[in-house]
């Protein structure tokens, strides 16, 4: 595997075709909305207003959602780069959120500000532990992680559902949620008067660290080698493939768990059942749109955060279902995977470097 590879000239062919297809689909969507008597102009205006249109929308909606999406997206990106199809970010995020809420509720009174560190560490540890189950099942028994992580997502959902009705329920025992965290156990606001919290810089720092790790360290090289071709990584480099895979799986789980901890300590301040509107699944889109590059995850996390923030505004102000946003996400995702396939075909024909063709190696 060449570490350094020559650049190929940009070819607009498939990209252009895709852009045209995307445009046609957007027009079709607009016509559909128009036919159903909805105001397209107002919908687009609301989408913009709710995402980037004002400092308040950007700081209190878009970037708040982006913080969670970036961390969860990193979790997916790291796993996919190591050849692990971890679709369990949702479950790892939920147990991370549960652990953070449990730790915060238990020790905030006696530990003050230090509680925050324990909450975030607890969230990451819980996420890693949840991922460890799937990692162990894969390593010991060869159970497909696609199936095991999917099932662990459901298990996590029921664990949370049990906790908020049982041991962690708020003292009055009326609502299925935990008691609100005290102020010292919450992430402080980054700028006063906004909802943007310290989770955002934490997420960005994690993304930069992951990028540097993959690009500049021997460990990152081993992870990428295992992801590209496990048998070659073993025979050519004597890389401990199961060990690298397990560690990558744990790091992936820890990042998703941290995302959950940040959601609890920065946004919801309590644990409840519908805490995550599918962040763990959107994270797959975040990671793939970034072509599994941790640095680009920052950009795609903000993009999808904006789409989701704008989507809620669209539903509120223009009565357009916010679910329309997932159509856009899906179209973006399909566009990216088709582009990758075309690039791969070209490489097969010309005998080039696959990783570069996927656009995942050279950040």
């Amino acid at each position, binding site marked *: 595997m060449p570490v350094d590879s020559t650049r190929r000239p940009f070819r607009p062919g498939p990209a252009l075709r895709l852009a045209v297809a995307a445009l046609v689909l957007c027009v079709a969507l607009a016509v559909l*909305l128009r036919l159903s008597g909805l105001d397209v102009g107002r919908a687009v205006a609301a989408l913009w207003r709710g995402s980037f249109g004002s400092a308040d929308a950007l700081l209190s909606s878009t970037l708040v959602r982006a913080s969670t999406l970036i961390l969860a997206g990193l979790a997916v990106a790291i796993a996919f780069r190591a050849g692990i*199809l971890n679709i369990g970010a949702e479950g790892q995020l939920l147990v991370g959120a549960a652990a953070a809420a449990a730790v915060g509720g238990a020790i905030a009174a006696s530990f003050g500000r230090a509680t925050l560190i324990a909450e975030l560490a607890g969230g990451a540890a819980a996420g890693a532990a949840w991922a460890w189950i799937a990692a162990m*099942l894969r390593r010991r028994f060869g159970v497909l992680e696609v199936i095991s992580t999917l099932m662990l997502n459901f298990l996590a959902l029921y664990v949370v559902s049990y906790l908020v009705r049982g041991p962690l329920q708020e003292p009055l025992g009326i609502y299925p949620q935990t008691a609100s965290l005290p102020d010292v156990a919450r992430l402080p606001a980054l700028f006063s008067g906004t909802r943007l919290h310290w989770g955002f810089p934490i997420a960005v720092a994690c993304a930069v660290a992951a990028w540097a790790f993959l690009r500049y360290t021997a460990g990152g090289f081993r992870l990428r080698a295992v992801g590209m071709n496990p048998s070659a990584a073993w025979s050519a480099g004597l890389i401990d493939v199961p060990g690298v895979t397990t560690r990558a799986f744990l790091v992936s789980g820890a990042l998703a768990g941290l995302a959950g901890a940040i959601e609890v300590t920065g946004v919801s301040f309590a644990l409840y059942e519908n805490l995550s509107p599918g962040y763990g699944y959107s994270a*797959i889109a975040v990671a793939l749109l970034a072509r599994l590059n941790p640095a680009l995850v920052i950009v795609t996390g903000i993009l999808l955060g904006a789409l989701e923030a704008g989507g809620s505004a669209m539903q509120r102000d223009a009565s357009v*279902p916010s679910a329309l946003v997932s159509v856009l996400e*899906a179209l973006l995702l399909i566009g990216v995977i088709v582009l990758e396939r075309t690039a791969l*075909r070209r490489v097969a024909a010309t005998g080039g470097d696959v990783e570069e063709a996927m656009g995942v190696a050279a950040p």
Partner: protein
Amino acid sequence: MSGAVDLFAAAAVRSATPLALAALGEMVAERAGVINLGLEGVIIAGALGAAVGASSGVAAGFTVAALAGAAVAGVFALFAVRIRTDQIITGTAVTLLALGLTATLYVALYGAAGVALTLPTQAVLTIPVLARIPVLGPAFFAQPPITYFLYVAVPVVWWWLYRTHAGLMLRATGEHPEAALVAGGSPVRVQGWAVLFGGVMGGLSGGSLVLAQVGTFAEGMSAGRGYIAIAIVAFGRWHPIGVAVAALVFGAASALQYLFQAMGWNAPYQIFLALPYALTLAALAIAAARGRTAAPAALGRRQLLAEGEV
């Protein structure tokens, strides 16, 4: 007591019906080597299709549901089977697409006001003698006809998979596509048809939610059943009979909450809801530990042939 048990058994079969329909179709697709995570999207499309078709009656509802499910599965097949994009990613995208499109189309068709749609539902058809068997009779033989469709579909799928040449070719495609090709088969075509069959069954599953259970459509009403069906396929060890039994186990787990409510028991029902998933994980691990992994060898493989095509 017996009244509550009867209710529980009937609810178990009722909850199992949409799960078994979707899982039976997904099982066929997975035996051909394709895991369709777009199944969740297939089911919601079937549900909306059923709501649209139901204006011309229940039969039309199920027909449109099957077609809608097949259409979504067709989109998945176009990318994942034809162009051979990654199955997991494509499935995720297709689910997102279908969940978003159905919600939008529903508003487009029936207005944003959210007037609850009331649709005709399939009446319970009681089978004369069999329904009088204690407990099992009313549970299995006093259900809407779509449940009885399964009693035919499960053995037919079993027979087709294990007793016909086409079924053998499908299983070969999922285990060893190169061998299937050498034997004169066409792996891409086989996988395409298998995914479409899964789409029809997933569409019927969504249809049964609307036309045999709820009588209306709601955004996101598939509620994760597509993913549950994938768990059921694994728990049922990729075998038609196993899948039917596994669907009953999952159906029973969700029906337990009704039993608990009826009996006034105050136990954490989440444990029972979670149990099937834990059992599935344990079953997968045990099977693998004994060296008897039931999963098709080429499941999820993007690259169809070991050499040549990327």
